[in-house]
């Protein structure tokens, strides 16, 4: 007798439909699983055998062959257990083979017959909806997560026998109540905690509003990390589609189990991270920090301490918004639309600009600069020098609060959405050169200003586009429909140096009283 059950393999962070086919023939008792499974799939024979026995059913003492189709797709992990067990029950006519075909089944079995918590249920649910299979059986812990996908009838079951009962037509158990969250004992980080740092606070808002990548540079202990940690508190809320995508990724990675993630991810990997850890890798390929930061913030503290190869690996994902990892014969694509925030010391000793404390000579500064990947720095739209606040600043009021900043940011985002509605870009940071030319027209004076900035060496060739993108966001925060000269000037002040550290602009060649002054 033949039976088949639908389930899903998780390929990277995406679901792929897999049919578990079980055929029982007469012969010596045997149980073979074919279809390119890994060690966990081979071991599932023992789990399925015991689970069926311990659930009050009978494990058929005949020749059983199970096939995981398509056979070319490599199957990883214990998530096929429940589907295998139900298929065996159906093939041995202990449950209805016809009824079981209407269900997608996902979950790991324990020897007792209980369904264990298995990461990735949301991805499976999305797969089921895409494959137009209307009913889904998942472990009870994952039921709420799977139910986030609309148009599915989700049954969260605790044991294999419950799953079999559901298939045979009994009422599925109600969704479990949400896990009680530990009450927030202290408020999250807020911009109101920050004194001084006017430029830093402004740059955070600009970065959040336009999704610009940000570099914070300053001596140790001046508040670079403190600023960066407050970025999530002013980011605009995720749309439902974004939230679902983020939840799916985090569920597959086993970082999240219950319900929808509502806050944007903030990932801060330690600087010893390998390239594979950062962008994804391994065999089978797993998502890296860049993917876990999708639709959120990737914060690299002490940028100069990261391996050069790790930083260089970030370049392409940063540019394209996704990364393709090839291992053996498999190519997997992971989404990586994150905002990069990096922090670094200005020089090897860390104290450049703190009175006379810095003892670094020009060679040391150059070496420090070389440690940072030039092409990566080129992708960072905003540079902020973070300085130690003075005592007067420490005593003064904060520049703004997170709630006020969040409102400004949301308002600026709304303007961008209206302007960019018919384009591929979601925000100013994603505008390409053609969009810039069309959507950010400059008057003659402002254009001349940029020309001057280029001529005196304040801008690199690519810097011009970077400055225009940032200027557009500054104008959005300013609620201005047009980019004015002041917006471009502000953006220029937040640019990166085109030349080496300490090199002066060739500005004197403008001569006294250049047109800039007019």
């Amino acid at each position, binding site marked *: 007798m033949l039976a088949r059950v639908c389930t899903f393999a998780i390929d990277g962070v995406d679901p792929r439909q897999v049919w578990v086919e079980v055929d029982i023939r007469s012969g010596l008792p045997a149980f073979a699983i074919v279809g390119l499974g890994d060690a966990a799939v081979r071991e599932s024979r023992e789990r399925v055998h015991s689970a069926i026995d311990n659930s009050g059913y009978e494990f058929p003492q005949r020749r059983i062959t199970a096939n995981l189709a398509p056979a070319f797709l490599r199957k990883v992990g214990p998530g096929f257990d429940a589907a295998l067990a139900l298929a065996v029950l159906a093939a041995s006519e202990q449950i209805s083979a016809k009824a079981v075909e209407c269900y997608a089944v996902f979950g790991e079995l324990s020897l007792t017959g209980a369904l264990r918590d298995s990461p990735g249920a949301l991805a499976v649910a999305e797969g089921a909806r895409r494959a137009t299979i209307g009913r889904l059986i998942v472990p009870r812990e994952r039921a709420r997560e799977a139910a986030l996908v609309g148009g599915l009838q989700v049954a969260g079951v605790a044991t294999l026998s419950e799953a079999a009962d559901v298939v045979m037509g009994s009422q599925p158990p109600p969704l479990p109540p949400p896990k009680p969250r530990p009450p927030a004992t202290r408020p999250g980080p807020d911009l109101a905690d920050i004194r001084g740092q006017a430029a830093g606070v402004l740059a955070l808002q600009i970065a959040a509003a336009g999704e610009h990548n940000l570099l914070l*540079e300053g001596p140790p202990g001046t508040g670079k990390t403190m600023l960066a940690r407050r970025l999530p508190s002013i980011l605009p809320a995720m749309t439902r589609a974004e939230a679902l995508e983020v939840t799916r990724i985090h569920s597959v990675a086993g970082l999240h189990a219950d319900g929808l993630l509502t806050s944007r991810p903030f990932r801060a990997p330690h600087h010893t991270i390998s390239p594979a850890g950062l962008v994804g890798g391994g065999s089978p390929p797993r998502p890296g920090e860049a993917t876990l930061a999708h639709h959120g913030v990737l914060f690299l503290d002490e940028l100069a301490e990261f391996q050069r190869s790790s930083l260089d690996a970030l370049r392409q994902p940063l540019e394209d918004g996704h990364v393709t990892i090839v291992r053996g014969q498999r190519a997997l694509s992971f989404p990586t639309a994150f905002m990069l925030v990096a922090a670094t010391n200005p020089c090897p000793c860390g104290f450049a600009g703190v009175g006379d404390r810095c003892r670094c000579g020009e060679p040391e500064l150059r070496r420090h600069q070389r440690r940072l990947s030039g092409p990566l720095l080129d992708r960072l739209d905003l540079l902020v020098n973070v300085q130690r606040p003075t005592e007067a600043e420490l005593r003064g009021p904060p520049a703004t609060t997170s709630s006020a900043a969040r409102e400004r940011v949301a308002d600026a985002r709304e303007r961008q959405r209206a302007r960019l509605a018919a384009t591929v870009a979601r925000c100013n940071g994603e505008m390409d050169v053609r969009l810039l030319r069309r959507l950010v027209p400059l008057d003659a004076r402002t254009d001349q200003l940029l020309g001057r900035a280029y001529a*005196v060496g304040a801008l690199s060739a690519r810097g011009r586009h970077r400055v225009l993108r940032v200027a557009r966001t500054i104008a959005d925060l300013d609620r201005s429909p047009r980019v004015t000269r002041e917006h471009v000037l502000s953006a220029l002040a937040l640019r990166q140096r085109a030349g080496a550290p300490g090199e002066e602009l060739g500005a004197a060649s403008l001569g006294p009283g250049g047109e*800039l002054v007019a």
Partner: protein
Amino acid sequence: MLALPDDELIAALAGRRRPGIERELCRLDVGALRARASVAGLGLICRCDPAYPAQLRSLDAPPAVLHVSGSLERALALLERDSVAIVGARRASGYGLDVARSLARGLATAGLTVISGMALGTDSAAHAGTLAAHGATVAVLPGGADRPYPASRRPLYRRIVATGTILSELPAGAAVRRWAPPARNRLIAALAAVTVVVEAGARSGALVTASYARELGHPVGAVPGRVTSDLAGGCNGLIRTGATLIRRPQDVLDELFGEGVVTYREAVRPPLREELERLLCAVGKGHDTIAALGQSGFSPEQALAGISELELCGYVRRGPGGRFSVVP
């Protein structure tokens, strides 16, 4: 000792390696050297040429041949003019670099040729300041004149070749040996009518230049520094032993031509918009960050835009750690 004729020099120094060096000397092919220089685009001028810079003849051992990168005529014309050497530490402070730059700018505006060694730090700042004022500058290199040294100064090298001149006494392609920079310093001291040391520690190579200048009877000036600073020991020592104290370009002109003979007019800064004028004033008072400017009543947006404009005009500079300072 380098002034000795070749055979005596070899006898005095070569020791065991004498036969090898003599063989080398016999094999020396002047034609090939000349060909190499012309391939490298270097102009040559010999000690016997009447156009050879007269200042160098006062040296005990004037270079046999001067190698010039760029136009030979322009090089000789630049060396005809009154000239000043601005030298100092490689690991100079931001203040030292500012002083070197502004001295060079002022003296170049007054029509002097600024001579230095294109080393990191003070030397490069002096060249850059001169170029910024469209002045004439001469770099004397410790290696071949066709090789930018240090290599990281290639952009500066190119800018100097375009409008100034690069000199060396060594043939094309010569690498820099340990003895070369002090030997180069004697050329700088001889070429310049006055030598100014901007910032120098007690063991700085700039002091070598100053002592050569004194031996040649050329005036020496030094910019004073804080007595507690390591970087000021050399300069303050020079002043104590009779060097002229240099504060501004006019001090150098007075030393060279006599009190008040040549006056240098500082470029008058045209008035700025009222808001920018206030901002510049605030930066001058030491409000050197956006947050600090906020204390004197500028919103971050205003301050950013204003600083940007002042920076593009060349009135404000971003120093280490991104702190602003008024360009002197």
